[in-house]
């Protein structure tokens, strides 16, 4: 038997299998790292490089890297655009929009996730409409409604508009979270005399927390990146970061300044994602077992 599982060189089969497994993991890791570098690393590296291009010595063919660096593109953005005002607005509107979309999504998600509602799938599709339709189309139609009820050019109107765009993500993720709560956990709690409030506090909220955090990330990022609604409903009274970014992209594409604004927009989001990701990981297992 031992003769069968040993190679001609005498290496045991389990050693060879372990070696192959290790090689396979190394290959997978290398592939993952390569994909990360290509899809994430290179664009960020290019954005950093372009944001530091010296206007006096442009980064041009055949140079592999810029010949000299300068903070001129950064100075330009801070001197000539409303970036500070836009940052203030974006990071005030986004958390409020997340909060509001959570409050508004919670009952909908609960019903869709836990109750047998006729036409459930239809409602799930309807909820997605704001993100399925082209942004400018939504913006043009909604702007009339907002103007009609006096919400155009108001801070609350802007928060509401961003909430609308974040809600589809929040509803979908929370619905799945509610649906995945095991019924026996709820039954057990009821048998032990848990009332509605106890069930909400001890079962529902801990168990939907991972979904809630994921929904918050989606809603937050959607708000930070929202352009069309803000532009039509909010400007000139309010500007957000994408309204500045779009002035350097699209038709009037200016790589140096677009890179600066993209990095400004990206940095706080990355920090927030790391924080939330950490929060999500540490709580996920406990939450899924209902031991929070």
């Amino acid at each position, binding site marked *: 038997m031992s003769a069968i599982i040993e190679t001609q060189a005498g290496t045991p089969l389990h050693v060879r299998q372990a070696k192959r497994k290790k090689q396979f993991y190394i290959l997978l890791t290398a592939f993952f790292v390569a994909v990360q570098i290509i899809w994430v690393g290179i664009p960020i590296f290019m954005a950093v490089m372009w944001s530091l*291009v*010296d*206007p*006096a*010595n*442009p*980064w*041009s*063919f*055949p140079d592999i890297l810029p010949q000299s660096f300068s903070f*001129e*593109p950064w100075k*330009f953005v801070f*001197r*000539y*655009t*409303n970036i500070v005002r836009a940052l203030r*607005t974006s990071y*005030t509107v986004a*958390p*409020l929009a997340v*909060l509001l979309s959570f409050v508004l999504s919670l009952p909908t998600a609960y019903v869709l996730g836990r109750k047998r509602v006729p036409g459930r799938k239809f409602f799930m599709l309807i909820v997605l409409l704001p993100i399925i339709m082209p942004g*400018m189309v939504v*913006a*043009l139609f909604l*702007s*009339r409604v907002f*103007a009609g009820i006096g919400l*155009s*050019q*108001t*801070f*609350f109107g802007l*928060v509401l508009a961003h909430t609308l765009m974040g809600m589809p993500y929040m509803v979908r993720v929370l619905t799945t979270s509610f649906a995945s709560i095991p019924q026996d956990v709820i039954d057990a709690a009821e048998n032990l005399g848990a009332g509605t409030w106890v069930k909400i506090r001890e079962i529902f909220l801990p168990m939907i927390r991972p979904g809630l955090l994921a929904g918050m990330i989606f809603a937050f990022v959607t708000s930070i990146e929202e*352009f*069309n609604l803000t*532009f*039509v409903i909010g*400007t*000139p*009274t*309010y*500007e957000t970061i994408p*309204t*500045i970014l*779009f*002035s350097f*992209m*699209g*038709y*009037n*594409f*200016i*790589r*140096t*300044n677009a890179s600066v604004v993209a990095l400004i927009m990206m940095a706080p989001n990355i920090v927030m994602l790391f924080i939330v990701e950490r929060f999500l990981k540490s709580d996920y297992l406990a939450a899924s077992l209902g031991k929070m």
Partner: protein
Amino acid sequence: MKKILAVFVVGLLTVGMLFAAGSREPQVQAPSLDLQSASWNEIVDAAKAEGQVIFYAWYFPDYFREAAEDFEAEYGIRVNLVIGDQTANFNKVIAEQNRAVGTVDAMVVGGQWVKTTLDLGLFYGPLQNIIPDAEHLAPALWEMQEGVLTNGYLTPLHRNQTGILYDPQRVSNPPQTFTELEAWIDANPRQFGFNDPSRGGSGQSFVHTVIHHVAGGLEQYVGDEEVDPAKVANWNLVWDWFNQRKDKLTFTVSNNDSIVRINDGEMAMTFGWDDNVQDMINRGNIFSRARMYIPEMGAAGGGDTMGILHNAPNPAAAALFIHHLTTVEQQRKKFEMVGAYPARIDIEMEGTLLSEEDRANNALAWFPAPYKDLMISDFVRNVLMQQ
């Protein structure tokens, strides 16, 4: 953790409410002054009473910011400047077209949108008899912008011109005639490119030039208010010209994309706008060795204009700001900062990207707008959508 979260939420709501309370509600009263019958002094007084002007553009943020600061210092009128995206700017004013009072006073108008916006009646006018020094601004641009009759509704902001942009390190003897260009394209596949004409004027200008040479000249279209089917019957020759060279041409997605690809070495030659190229040079987005000229085969030119929205909340301030942007000082300043060729014809400029000789001899006028519309749609259908 819960306490921190609670403090954060309460803080956020407080900041939000303070922010909301501090926001300015837009002016909702319709203006009473009739700009057509008012004297200029009355307009200036009314502008000061209005107290602010809301102006939209999509390029030259540096120049417009400084011009706004100069205006505020001179008149004490606040400028709310929004540098947005061209399409979004126009979509916004179209969305607000039926409101009695909109949220935008005045805006820059590019050739791509002039027909749509005039057809929709978005602009107040005419302005030619209101703006001081109107006679010193390019008369052709007061009358027509990229083939569309504007009848004095849109005030010239600057003139611009398309031409051939090239990298002198890679092109030693750039073509002048159409035959030379054909030979150059054949000898240097993919090294000449232009943008999809539905996405930018420089690409439109190149297709316009090809029509000029392949379909029997542009003179035949002058004065037509509608497309004459007999005059476009031979445009199939134009589409054949493109399709035969499709594998030797590079199609780009915008004016700026063409310039970027020259900088990156993907192409060596393209059609571009002079002000656009100069702005990209100033901001380090293309090498300063870039050269530009108007070839003997011709290239179209025009300019950008400004209009006051028919439902502007501050029309007098808008008129005053437009006047401010067309003064000699501001036109010079714009040229020095961003290289835009002045709309004023009473000042001379040195150091322009395109020579005055080229402008005088080789610049073409656009054919009428209906032909331009047809050119764009036919190009997309007969060239871009063909295998």
